[in-house]
């Protein structure tokens, strides 16, 4: 405890506080813009390590990391344009809420949820890093494969009333995920070297969500009168709080372990949280139309996962995300050797960093909460200008990501796909999940089989994998039982096809 207090003493000196403020502002800014992420921002700021003391630089980098997670959700909610892959899911309900005049509530539940998750995550980090750290490497490819498969299983919840359309979307997503180099061979790259690293989730999401919708609105502008976005309450109501706090906690429970696992990531827990909330919600009819749970859960999940990421990094010197990898480079340029002894050897610095995470989190809440109603006003811009702005923003982000006209072409092609999906009532969520999960499933499966030299027995060779398959079997049985029961009763399922189209 003394150590943590010392850490706060370091993190709260005026100059370090200034670095934290600069960090969270920068992080929020880059989180907002699709294509520019916290990892590259930290990378470009690496030269400051030449002139700034270690604790200040690391405090700033931590601010950028957390800030990026906040900023990404703002554009997801307001403009349907996710800034980061981990806030893709937030756009689903968040943007619907914004259109119902509840943008301020969506932003607020995202901000508070992030704060709650970030804080709990940081506490867990402090408690668990020394003991759990060495265990995370025990999980191998077979376990990850089983966990991802379990996650894919969850998609069945969101396929919608038309299973056919749901599967079309899912397989489209999986197909997009196939693009790229595999085992040294180009696959589905059509001769473009630009495609050999695969298609980034953010590009797909921005195209399908923002571009597809802009085209859809443009196609209907003349024929339909404009819907006016109502002006809503500026703050969260009691009911909003009541519906948010459980998703925050559940989102944290999903996010932290996935962040802490070396191959976990931030995207999978966000959609696991989403489907869980959809399942558990007392207002399932609101999903697809702007359910606050669908924002609260995923936003908590992505921030908790950011905290989780720091666990293998501090305990073992293992970077599990791009941002963590770049922060490790920063450690090294201070002559600090990340690795198992890092925490013991640099106690003061580590605790200052942990304290600064609390500080960054608090700063973000203080900065973002009052701004929520201000941001929400953005939506009162007349539709044609608003969508022109969204298009500009989406295009700028896609271009900035690679300074290449190729990405613009890709964005347009996928945008047309998004338009067509709206036209034919194909839900977009299964597609996004396919893009997220497909490559991960394949990666883990091929790693497991490469190591076992083609022996499929390896897939049930780890306890975690077996547990995951047991859960899957149980779910399957549950589904069948539910199906039999519901076919006996006459009540129709509450989720209608139209909701799915909107989702």
């Amino acid at each position: 405890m003394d150590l943590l207090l010392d850490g706060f003493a370091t993190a709260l000196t005026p100059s370090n506080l200034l670095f934290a403020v600069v960090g969270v502002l920068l992080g929020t800014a880059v989180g907002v813009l699709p294509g520019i992420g916290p990892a590259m921002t930290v990378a470009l700021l690496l030269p400051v390590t030449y002139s700034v003391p270690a604790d200040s630089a690391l405090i700033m980098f931590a601010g950028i990391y957390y800030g990026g997670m906040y900023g990404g959700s703002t554009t997801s909610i307001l403009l349907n344009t996710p800034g980061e892959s981990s806030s893709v899911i937030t756009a689903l309900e968040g943007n619907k809420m914004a259109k119902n005049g509840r943008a301020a509530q969506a932003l607020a539940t995202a901000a508070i949820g992030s704060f709650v998750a970030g804080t709990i995550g940081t506490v867990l980090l402090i408690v668990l890093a020394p003991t759990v750290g060495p265990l995370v490497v025990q999980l191998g490819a077979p376990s990850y494969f089983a966990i991802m498969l379990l996650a894919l299983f969850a998609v069945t919840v969101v396929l919608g009333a038309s299973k056919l359309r749901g599967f079309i979307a899912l397989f489209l997503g999986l197909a997009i995920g196939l693009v790229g180099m595999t085992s040294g061979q180009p696959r589905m790259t059509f001769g473009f070297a630009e495609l050999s690293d695969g298609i980034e989730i953010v590009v797909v999401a921005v195209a399908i969500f923002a571009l597809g919708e802009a085209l859809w609105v443009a196609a209907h502008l003349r024929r339909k009168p404009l819907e006016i976005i109502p002006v809503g309450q500026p703050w969260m109501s009691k009911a909003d709080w009541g519906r948010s706090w459980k998703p925050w906690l559940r989102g944290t429970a999903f996010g932290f372990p996935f962040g802490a696992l070396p191959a976990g990531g931030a995207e999978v827990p966000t959609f696991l949280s989403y489907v869980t909330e959809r399942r558990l919600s007392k207002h399932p009819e609101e999903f697809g139309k702007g359910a606050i749970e669908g924002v609260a859960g995923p936003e908590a999940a992505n921030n908790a996962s950011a905290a989780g990421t720091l666990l293998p990094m501090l305990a073992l010197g293992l970077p599990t995300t791009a941002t963590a990898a770049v922060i490790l480079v920063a450690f090294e340029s201070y002559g600090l050797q990340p690795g198992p002894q890092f925490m013991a050897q640099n106690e003061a610095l580590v605790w200052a960093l942990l304290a600064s995470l609390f500080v960054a989190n608090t700063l973000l809440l203080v900065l973002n909460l009052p701004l929520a109603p201000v941001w929400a006003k953005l939506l009162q811009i007349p539709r044609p200008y608003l969508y022109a702005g969204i298009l500009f923003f989406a295009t700028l982000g896609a271009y900035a990501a690679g300074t290449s006209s190729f990405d613009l072409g890709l964005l347009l092609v996928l945008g047309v796909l998004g338009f067509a999906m709206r036209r034919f009532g194909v839900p977009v969520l299964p597609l996004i999940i396919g893009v997220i999960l497909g490559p991960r499933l394949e990666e883990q499966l091929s790693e497991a089989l490469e190591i076992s030299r083609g022996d499929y027995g390896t897939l049930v060779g780890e306890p975690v994998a077996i547990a995951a398959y047991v859960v899957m079997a149980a779910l399957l049985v549950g589904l069948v039982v539910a199906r039999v029961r519901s076919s006996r009763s006459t009540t129709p399922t509450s989720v209608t096809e139209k909701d799915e189209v909107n989702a």
Partner: protein
Amino acid sequence: MTVNLFPHRSPSTRRGLRAVLATVSVVSLAALTACGGVTASSDSGDASGDLADKRMRMMIPNAAGGGYDLTGRAAVKVMEDEKITGRFEVSNVEGASGTVAMQRLLNEKGSDDLLMTMGLGVVGAVYTNKSDATVDKAVPIARLIEEQEAILVPKDSPFKTVDDFVEAWKADPDKVVVGGGSAPGGPDFLFPMQLADAVGVTPKDVAYVEYDGGGPLTTALLGSKIDVGMSGLGEFEGQIADGSLRVLAVSGEERLETTDAPTLTEEGIDLVFTNWRGVLAPPGIDDATREAYVKAFEEMHDTQAWKDTLEKNGWADNFATGEEFETYLDEQNERVRTTLTDLGLA
């Protein structure tokens, strides 16, 4: 005009460090465009070979924070600070492990203000990507640094020496799973393949598992998911220091001061392999420009600032220019091509 002022094409990436954004920032994006405009006008002047006031561009073939990025930016910083050249515009052109950047370099035939940082990984990547933008088509300027590869095993591995490992490997290549931090074509892939060839294991039989960089590779080694890891030492120093990973051998000509491990040649294996980084210029530049570039890098190499940079980053000096680098590059290109062709990857 044949100069392609602002070439396009770069990919989007999917995960890991590679997913980091390619360009400097939106601000410098504008600057880059502007710089393209400047190129046109500066083409006419400046044949004297004096670079001191000249604005230059440095292309980096991978993400900000990656190996080429750190080397390229460090070299640029020294040249700017020591007033050897004018300011540089540094841009990260990601994609296909450097193939996209290589294509851009070759497209800018004759551009006299452009350089590209590259290395062994780019040599192999153009082959696995089935691109004809091979490195021998560019103009070699300088080789800067090298990094040795190491053979790593977990603490409780049955392999105590290189011999133990090679014995087991020869007996049954299927039973010895080798992991590396690069995709097929990259340094961590080429090293085990050439090592296999050198000790009499058929490269095609090598059980190679690709990891997305040093982090995931360390995870796999610590969890004993694979038997042997092959990679540069940079990302493993913490684990080696605390004994959770052991180094069986390093791949360079001489032992490293920092690591207590023999070289392969000491162990009786006839292989010297280093992962090097250097600088290329586009084809079609005139001799005066080329000489000016070489001179600039020679000056940079002689500065104290560069020596400090090498030490700070733990890079081994491996400087070569002119004929020496040109011959070396051709030799490397040929060797990589043969290795990958034998494996059916080129």
